């Protein structure tokens, strides 16, 4: 639509009329095609324009700003409220890392639902970026015998402990390596992100991820207008379309503005730690210095930024 508007706006200037007429013809043609395909595919207008866009990282700042404004308008219409879409860049001298104290976690899953609300995951079908696994104390960490579907009256259960798993934000991410179209990459601050407007939904990354951290929109995600978190980031929690993969981004829209991820804030027992690895005085550096940490599936050489530890 915006191309068509531009075509009409310049048409009246009288300068280089032939060029303008051509632009108008092309954009009218595009709009017509968009209208046809939109009616065929049931998609919104701007379908063709979005279809033929280049990768977000390769766009000029002006084009990016246009796209963000378009998205804000589109989401604003869809959810009938004001939605912000930022593309806050990484901060210099910051590399994020995460710590999780298995000794403290009580398996309440408040983090799971705080994440769903913060990051606009689909409510139907439900998508959870965090999976809390119940382990038997006598077996230790044994994924094969764990379950995410425990429903006791009260947690923690006496014979169990809990291992929450989300994206491990690997330094050596298998998911990024296998993506056939460069739709997912590692940002300078260590966060592995996906461009939902570039992902083709082939799900190679889901095969490659050893932590089950990537989730697919098997159908059109549903979030009610009241439940939508309107503070979003292009690479993070903005509403996603059906048919693309999504994942935890350490709450990219929060942490790049100096806030904690939602799961860290909600945790009632303080089992979740977060900080900047490059800052000597950060919580994470303290943790790595003073506690003994381990990572999941270290033999796969994914080198997670997500550390587990037993504080007591």
């Amino acid at each position, binding site marked *: 639509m915006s191309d068509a508007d531009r075509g009409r706006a310049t048409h009246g200037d009288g300068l280089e009329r032939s060029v303008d007429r051509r632009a108008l013809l092309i954009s009218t043609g595009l709009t017509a095609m968009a209208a046809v395909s939109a009616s065929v595919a049931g998609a919104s207008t701007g379908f063709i324009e979005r279809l033929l866009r280049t990768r977000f990282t390769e766009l000029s700042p002006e084009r990016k700003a246009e796209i963000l404004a378009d998205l804000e308008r589109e989401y604003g219409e869809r959810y009938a409220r004001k939605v912000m879409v930022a593309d806050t860049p990484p901060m210099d001298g910051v590399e994020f890392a995460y710590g999780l104290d298995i000794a403290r976690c009580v398996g309440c899953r408040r983090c799971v639902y705080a994440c769903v609300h913060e990051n606009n995951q689909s409510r139907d079908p439900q998508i959870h970026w965090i999976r809390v696994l119940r382990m038997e104390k006598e077996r230790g960490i044994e994924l*094969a015998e764990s379950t995410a579907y425990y429903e006791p009256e009260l947690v923690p259960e006496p014979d169990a402990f809990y291992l929450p798993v989300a994206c491990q934000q690997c330094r050596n991410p298998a998911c990024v390596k296998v*993506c056939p179209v460069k739709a997912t990459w590692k940002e300078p601050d260590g966060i592995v992100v996906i461009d939902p407007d570039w992902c083709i939904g*082939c799900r190679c990354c889901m095969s490659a991820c050893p932590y089950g951290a990537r989730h697919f929109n098997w159908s059109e995600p549903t979030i009610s207008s009241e439940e939508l978190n309107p503070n979003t980031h292009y690479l993070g929690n903005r509403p996603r379309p059906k048919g693309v993969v999504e994942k935890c981004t350490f709450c990219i829209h929060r942490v790049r503005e100096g806030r904690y991820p939602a799961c860290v804030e909600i945790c009632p027992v303080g089992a979740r730690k977060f900080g900047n690895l490059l800052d000597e005085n950060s919580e994470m550096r303290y943790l790595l210095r003073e506690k003994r940490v381990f990572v999941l599936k270290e033999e796969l050489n994914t080198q997670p930024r997500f550390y587990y530890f037993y504080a007591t």
Partner: protein
Amino acid sequence: MIKDIPSFVAGSARLVLRGNRWYFAWMAFLGVLIVWGVTAWLQQLDQGLIVSNMRDQVSWAYYIGNFTFLVGVAAAAVMLVIPAYIYNWKPIKEIAIFGELLAISAIVMCMLFVLVDMGRPDRVWHLLPLVGSLNLPSSLLGWDVLVLNLYFVLNLVIVAHLLYTAYHRRPYSPRFVVPLLLFSIPAAVGIHTVTAFVYAGVAARPFWNSAILAPRFLASAFCSGPAVLLILFQILRRTTSIEIKNEAIWKIAELMAYAMFLNLFLFGAEIFREYYSATHHLIHTQYLFSGVHGHNALVPFAWASLIASVIAFLLFLIPATRRNLVTLNLGCLLIYSGVFIEKGIALVIPGMTPDTLGEFYEYVPTLTEVRIGAGIFAIGFLIFTVLCKIAIPILQESDEPASDDVPQTEVALP
């Protein structure tokens, strides 16, 4: 030369539109299947892949399994091209073109299965070299796109040249075609190897993460593709005047027996390693062959595939049963179904069951998935039928004493 193209196209079209009752009944049957499949796909486009039974735990399944199997079928050409052009064995040289026709049809089916598996088929162009953003050299699926397209174009060019020259009763140009044919051998090995690497490169899935996966792919591919061709050859020599010698059929069957032996041996080596070391990784193989915690949907398929493959191996190994057309055809059916289950079901699904965090989600395809799959197979068979319908009369005519002055020995086709 160029002005002859319209007559070739028109002639081909005439051949496709001509046929007996059986031909049109067959085409109508395929047409019904295609409509059945396309309507299911439209439903999938509208609602998303939720209409399949794939979920985050088993995120690749029936579609990608079929894709993998059909990459194998596309190898059939090589099983004919090697004896025909490396060993210059004449009985196979005369019929090698059918391998290429099968390869073309199989690759089209492969591409369609990848397309229907994609969450965003509207963005398929992101996969195109130069236009899109192919993630080379690191993505194996990226490489797969390249080699599959290369192999497709290669076979298309070879077949078009052979048929075009035969149609105009001119000799084909060996200087043009033979290097392409020879190049198609490493290209065929390439499509199988790269497809195997898509799985074998995934360290997160121990069931796939095996060095002998690519050799196993090649071995099973060299049985399943020719199984289709052996049956086709018998139909052709009954219904047309194309001469296909028993020696050619027996020789292909013998090569299939060796390939099946290698396939079973490599399978045995894998099974030994899994069960003897009995690590946590064994659970995928156990899920496949005996079921785990009452999850046993794949068990009957796994055993059916193994038993079919062993029986077929014995039928093809023993000369008496290899030369008996009844047992030979039985063996072809057993190999085809055995390898179809092995690649289509018993590779992808157990590799993802249980998932990387130990969860069992038991996958069985939905009717929508089966319909879409049937539609794609129907499209593949339709393409193969049309290509054969064009090729057979052209080959027959060019085999008969030519009416113009081109000597017959020069028009004889590879």
